[in-house]
């Protein structure tokens, strides 16, 4: 098996600018052998490596059945800036896939609710596309909903894909604020506002939540208030990650290794830890 501490080469096949600071990179693993053995589930992430700069954990934003392996990256600091300077044909390093993904197997027969905030849509897009691409999956749920909140209309990622999502999902969007000239017709306010609009059948709902930590906390609170069982709420956490495989200690969240036991957690598993400041 490939040593998980050594990156392998991945060529940038194409880059698509999503918003002012975010772009999607399609990567092609160069080694045939590694590519053949490479399997992931939505919610898992890779460590992307720019030699000389460093590594960053980035969720896979495509579905396993997609032809291209995609990552959607926002420029934040050193590594993500270096990535943004690259062009199609350039080669980067990659390690992965790492972590525990979204539990598809638990969604059968239930209403699936996807709640995304900002860039948190990236690992959830993998879920959405997976459902779109596998007809069988689409039929497996009684109802499918996607709630997405962004800062402004300009910050909505994958906007051009939403018409397709709407064929299978009830899609509700909200932004923190919209300038009048943007002619925004969706909601303004927090994602949690959208819960009122959807009339959830709480006991049949399974929720996948990803976004900034505060947004996840308020979303979970709202879901619980509405009676969604804690065992059916899943969140994807962000922490500092260095090794990706549970050997470096940076991602500790109480006794959990976020890189290995997560990043996707069942809320009931981490409930006791969520409220503790600076854990």
């Amino acid at each position, binding site marked *: 098996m490939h*040593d998980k501490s050594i990156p392998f080469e991945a060529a940038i096949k194409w880059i698509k600018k999503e918003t002012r600071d975010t772009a999607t990179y399609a990567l092609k693993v160069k080694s045939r052998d590694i590519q053949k053995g490479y399997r992931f589930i939505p919610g898992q992430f890779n460590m992307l490596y720019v030699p000389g700069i460093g590594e960053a954990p980035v969720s896979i934003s495509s579905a396993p059945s997609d032809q291209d392996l995609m990552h959607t990256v926002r420029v934040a600091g050193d590594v993500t800036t270096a990535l943004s300077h690259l062009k199609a044909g350039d080669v980067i*390093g990659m390690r992965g896939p790492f972590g525990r993904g979204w539990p598809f197997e638990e969604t059968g027969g239930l209403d699936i609710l996807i709640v995304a905030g900002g860039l948190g849509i990236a690992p959830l897009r993998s879920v959405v596309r997976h459902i779109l691409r596998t007809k069988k999956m689409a039929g497996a749920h009684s109802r499918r909903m996607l709630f997405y909140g962004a800062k402004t209309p300009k910050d909505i990622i994958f906007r051009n894909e939403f018409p397709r999502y709407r064929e299978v999902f009830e899609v509700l969007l909200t932004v923190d604020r919209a300038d009048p000239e943007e002619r925004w017709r969706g909601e303004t306010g927090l994602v949690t506002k959208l819960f009122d609009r959807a009339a959830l059948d709480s006991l049949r709902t399974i929720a996948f939540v990803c976004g900034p930590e505060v947004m996840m906390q308020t979303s979970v609170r709202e879901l619980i208030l509405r009676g969604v069982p804690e065992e059916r709420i899943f969140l994807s956490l962000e922490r500092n990650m*260095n090794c990706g495989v549970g050997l470096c200690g*940076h991602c*500790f969240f109480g006794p959990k290794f976020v890189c290995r036991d997560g990043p996707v957690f069942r809320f009931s598993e981490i409930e006791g830890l969520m409220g503790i400041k*600076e854990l």
Partner: protein
Amino acid sequence: MLKQKLKKEHLGLLFDKLKVTHGVLGPKVENGVVTLAEIDAHDIPSGYEDHQQPGGYRLIKGERPEIFSFSIGPDSFKRFLQPPLREVFAFRRAAGISITRPGAEQRPLAFIDMRPCDLSALKLYDRIFLRGPVRDPYYDSLRRDSLVFVLNCLYPNDNCFCPSMGTGPEATDGFDVALTELSDSFLLEAGTAKGETVLAGLPAGEVDDSDMREKGARIELCRKRIKKFIRAGELPGLIYRNVEHPRWAEIAERDLECGNCTQLCPTCFCNSTYDALGLSGISKKSYQVSGRRMRKWDSCFSKNFARVHGGNFRPSRRARYRQWMSHKLAYTMEQFGLPGCVGCGRCITWCPAGIDITKELEALKSAR
């Protein structure tokens, strides 16, 4: 398993035998402390006594008749099996990326004086780096052919609390050979076939009941000399119930965040990986670059340890200290099924502020 005695004057023969195949690591005095180094039998600082207290260590020539008359210093197996700084790979980026991994041509190591507490830490290391979901190939390459001679303790220092953690002063398993220093000889007990092979060929004295009784009595005496205790039976609950205890803030006021404890702790394993570029690594064509990816010990006391872009999950010293102690006394058990504190007391001795983990735990027990 094979059991035999070795006359004290024959200890050199054991070294000679091991040296053929292994780098033999044992105790040696350097800068006034007992450290570990590649040594010969005559380097062992026999007759020295270490006096340890919170924030203090003193080595003096004493009266004890044993060869191993001292306890542990700051050093442990850790820096030999998981070096403080090492190269993960060398890289060169031009059109593609080429990666070269360093060869592992190092001689295997024999630890001649590993104490029972450290052996417990080694077991934890094995669990983390060999039996976790991902094996650490570098650790594996160093560990695979190593030999572990555990030395049952006769003299603890004043900061030892191994009995509380169930790790010492006697080792019961996990070693290749266990040594116990008796009055006129060493009792050698093999724990593995590898250990038996080493013992074969040494001048062997027969072991009788009185030797085993002497071993028992000597270890019992050591146990009686232990001065520190913790309420291990109340762990991990004592930690989990007290995450918001005011004591954490109070410790943070004394804590200097030097990170000594994490560096000396034989179970601390946190690390960071980064790219090191030499000046020669940067070419005029900016895309071309070469350098080495390095892995270094890190510490949860580092301010940036839990930093992410746009924030820090543990900005306060209070939270960082709590993280360290909680990892030692609660989380590790959950993560790896073994205690993260082995009771060696190094963090107490080498803390310049004299913070004593046994006392702090006791304080958590007291009313808020």
